[in-house]
């Protein structure tokens, strides 16, 4: 990376993020403008598959909040995925993935944690959301900061490390070999958004699920007396 590019890096990151947002908005228009067909074609199939995954995850978490949770997770996932995939482009400035710059990933992690607080405020009220940040111990806030750090550092390390390896290899062996490294780099480019979204979903479930502990215990008490007598005599019979 030349000195001028390093000097302009923050602006490049902002430009690339805006570019990704533009691409995503265009894709959203393309996929939602026409009527959903009875027999889906390729674009509709891909869109439905992505949407279904997030809707299923949101339904597991909170059946009444699918319309809030699924778009949040899906937009995070698609945004990070498309930012990572910028590294495959062959234009000089655009091929710097904005997630290989620490400020970019820190922003994404902060957006995720602030979004979690807002969504939990919607379900549990503002006091409940703030209580989650400081309960049962005021030091809980440090755990929240740790979550932000781990989310951002993981994404930065994977994508930025990959980008650095590509740059170093391209310096020593400019022909042929960078292609292999790029192809290998596609694996973290797809796995890291998944991991980011899954961990965000876990934190979100932690933030909005606290009140529902009591009904679960009742269900367990109903189930256990039915299960035990059927399983125990069989085991004893097998042993003797």
């Amino acid at each position, binding site marked *: 990376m030349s000195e001028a590019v390093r000097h302009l890096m923050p602006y490049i990151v902002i430009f690339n993020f805006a570019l990704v947002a533009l691409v995503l908005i265009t894709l959203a228009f393309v996929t939602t403008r026409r009527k959903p067909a009875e027999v889906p074609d390729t674009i509709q199939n891909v869109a439905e598959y992505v949407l279904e995954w997030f809707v299923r995850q949101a339904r597991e978490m909170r059946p009444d909040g699918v319309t809030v949770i699924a778009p949040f997770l899906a937009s995070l996932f698609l945004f990070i995925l498309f930012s990572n995939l910028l590294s495959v482009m062959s234009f000089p400035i655009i091929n710097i993935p904005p997630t290989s710059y620490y400020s970019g990933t820190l922003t994404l992690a902060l957006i995720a944690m602030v979004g979690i607080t807002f969504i939990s405020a919607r379900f549990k009220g503002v006091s409940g959301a703030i209580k989650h940040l400081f309960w049962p111990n005021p030091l809980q806030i440090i755990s929240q900061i740790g979550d932000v750090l781990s989310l951002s550092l993981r994404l930065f390390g994977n994508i930025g490390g990959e980008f650095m390896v590509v740059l170093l290899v391209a310096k020593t062996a400019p022909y042929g070999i960078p292609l292999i490294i790029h192809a290998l780099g596609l694996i973290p480019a797809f*796995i890291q958004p*998944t*991991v980011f979204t899954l961990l965000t979903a876990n934190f979100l479930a932690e933030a909005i699920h606290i009140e529902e502990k009591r009904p679960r215990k009742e269900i367990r008490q109903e189930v256990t007396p039915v299960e035990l007598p059927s399983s125990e005599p069989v085991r004893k019979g097998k042993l003797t």
Partner: protein
Amino acid sequence: MQAIFLVFIPTLTIVPVAIAAAFAMRKISHAAIEGMTRQPEIAPQLFTAMLVAMALVEALVIYCLVIALMVAAKI
């Protein structure tokens, strides 16, 4: 002389952690693949759980990578 020793510090930071993480990942993937072959019907859930567990292990390596990069930038 001191600079020569400083060159080794990033390497020595990341290599033991990478070895340890490789062992941890071996154990995770071993357990996950064994579970998938025994019960293919829950393979998707096992795969997501494996991804999360691997990400948690990987985070430790990446902390060390960041520290190594910080040391390397000082040299």
